[in-house]
């Protein structure tokens, strides 16, 4: 649910990186922090961790300005993936405008991915979000490792769901921007329907992505 302050001409979007423990959610957000180094980016806030594992959430804010003067703030959150932090996940997931599900491509993690995805479905319904309507992308991370699920198999498993999926190696920095870009694109389409970003604020989807992500030249 978009946080929209009409008086101050400000809109806040919440994107959540979800997924099983150690699938690379924080790595994704760290890479985003590295790759997008523009002025309109806030500092990465990593909340307290225990043994380098996310305990609460990480937060990375971005800004952009629509031609109309509307300021759009995009806040990217991660959730803790460990099973025991389910209540925290639920709390962070509240009012999300889009979700990137970061799956671990390793063969040994297949079941854990499915369980985590089921957990996402369950928690979305608990916090009152419709998985059918919510912008959602899936990233298969850790493509650089050896024992991973073949892309062909992933396609067979996930294509039917209609959810866009991308391959990535967050540690090496590839696939990270693509995932974020795809999620931003879907989120734009979703909120444009309600807030008429293009019609009323002169902000097209291309412009939105261009402002949010670094240009080739940068």
């Amino acid at each position, binding site marked *: 649910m978009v946080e929209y302050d009409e008086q101050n001409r*400000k809109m806040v979007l919440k994107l959540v990186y979800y997924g099983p423990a150690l699938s690379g959610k924080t790595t994704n957000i760290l890479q985003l922090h590295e790759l997008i180094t523009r002025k309109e980016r806030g500092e990465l*806030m990593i909340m307290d961790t225990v043994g380098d594992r996310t305990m*609460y959430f990480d*937060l990375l*804010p971005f800004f952009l300005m629509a031609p109309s003067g509307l300021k759009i*703030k995009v806040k990217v959150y991660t959730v803790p993936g460990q099973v025991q932090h389910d*209540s925290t996940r*639920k*709390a962070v997931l*509240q009012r999300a405008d889009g979700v990137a599900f970061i799956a671990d491509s390793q063969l040994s993690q297949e079941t854990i991915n499915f369980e985590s995805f089921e957990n996402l479905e369950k928690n979305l319904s608990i916090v009152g979000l419709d998985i059918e309507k919510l912008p959602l992308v899936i990233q298969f991370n850790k493509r650089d490792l050896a024992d991973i699920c073949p892309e062909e198999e992933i396609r067979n498993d996930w294509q039917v769901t209609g959810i866009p999926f991308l391959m990535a190696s967050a540690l090496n920095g590839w696939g990270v921007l693509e995932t974020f870009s795809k999620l931003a694109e879907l989120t734009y389409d979703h909120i444009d329907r309600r807030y008429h970003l293009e019609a009323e604020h002169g902000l097209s989807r291309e412009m939105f992505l261009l402002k949010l992500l670094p240009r080739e030249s940068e």
Partner: protein
Amino acid sequence: MDITTEIIGEEKRLIDILSEEDVLPLLSTAIEGGAAEATILDESGAVLWHRGTRTGDDVPACFLPIRLEGEDIGQIRLTREGNKSLPVETLAAILQHSLQTILLCRLKRIFTNQVHSKVVNLSYEELLEKNRLLTLSEKKYRDLSATLEKKVDERTQELNAAHLRLIQQEKMTAIGQLAAGIAHEINNPLGYIISNLTTLKSYAEKLLLLAEKYRSEDGCPPGRKESVDSFWSELKFDYVCGDLIPLVTQSIAGAIRVKKIVSDLKGFAHMEEGSTSAVNLNEEIERTLRVLAHDIPHNTRIVREYGDIPTFVCNPGLFCQVFLNILRNSVQARTEDLQLHIRTEASSRGTLLIFSDNGPGIPREISARIFEPFFTTKDIGNGTGLGLTVAYDIVKGAGGTIEVSCPETGGTTFSIVLPSQRTP
């Protein structure tokens, strides 16, 4: 559970994060350090906190932003006293750095608190729910363990009852088979007894004619008449002549009755038709009455109102048991001036079979129990307490109902309703 009250990471303003206690000591330090005025402004430029002497707008001031999540959410404004030369910029920078650090720490604490309280609340709600379910489940098990023994007893009794009912039914069947077997064996000698008796009767008639002839004037040799007459009297032949034919006739009638009873017994046991067939229930009731005939008191009045009822597909032997058990109850209930009223009728509810008597009726308090196995009011040894139970089971097994009622006018009425649409 209201989890929408506070959203984690919701936008915060400077005033939401910092407090007077955080800021004012820092501002005071700046004044002590030589600044004329130290002010913190919010995002719209309004004064939030202030220390020092108000200086006019004309005094050059040093402005530094306070940033949060990459956004300016406020400003630091420091002025120096007009005549002093002071590195107010350095002071401002120190102030800015301190405030940023406090801000970040405060924000993290706010977020941590938000998550923590939310998680605690959610966990608490979940624990409450879990506790509620556990309490329910515990209660269920407690109830179960408390009633388990009783339930086992009940089930055991039911099983015992069912077992004894089965035995009773089998016993009835066995008795029926035995009776039918004996009846079959009796039938053959009975056949020639009746046949021979009939022949004997005609022979006796001839013999009597011959004796009559021999005694008459023209039949008797001359001079022998007196001694024949005397011998005739000696043998009381007048009486013999009078008694012989009725004697044989009665014997024939008796034998025919035996034959009838045997045939009814055979029919009753239905040796030859162990399975189901389309049965005329009126005939089965009649057959039962005949089998019961020796038990029915002499002065009993039986009113039959047989209706035109459709044939019923069933095991006729079993239904004879139903009628037998009901009728025997009536017969045993009253020995003098017993009246039996039997009515059958085809109705919209099905086939009605109604048996009424003018017996003492069944007390209200036990009428609900009469179909229970082993419930009997008869003396020990006289009743098994299973007769009506067996009747109940058979009727129920055929898809019908059996009820008992005791009208105000007295007596007992058993009403059986059988489904009319039974096709073989």
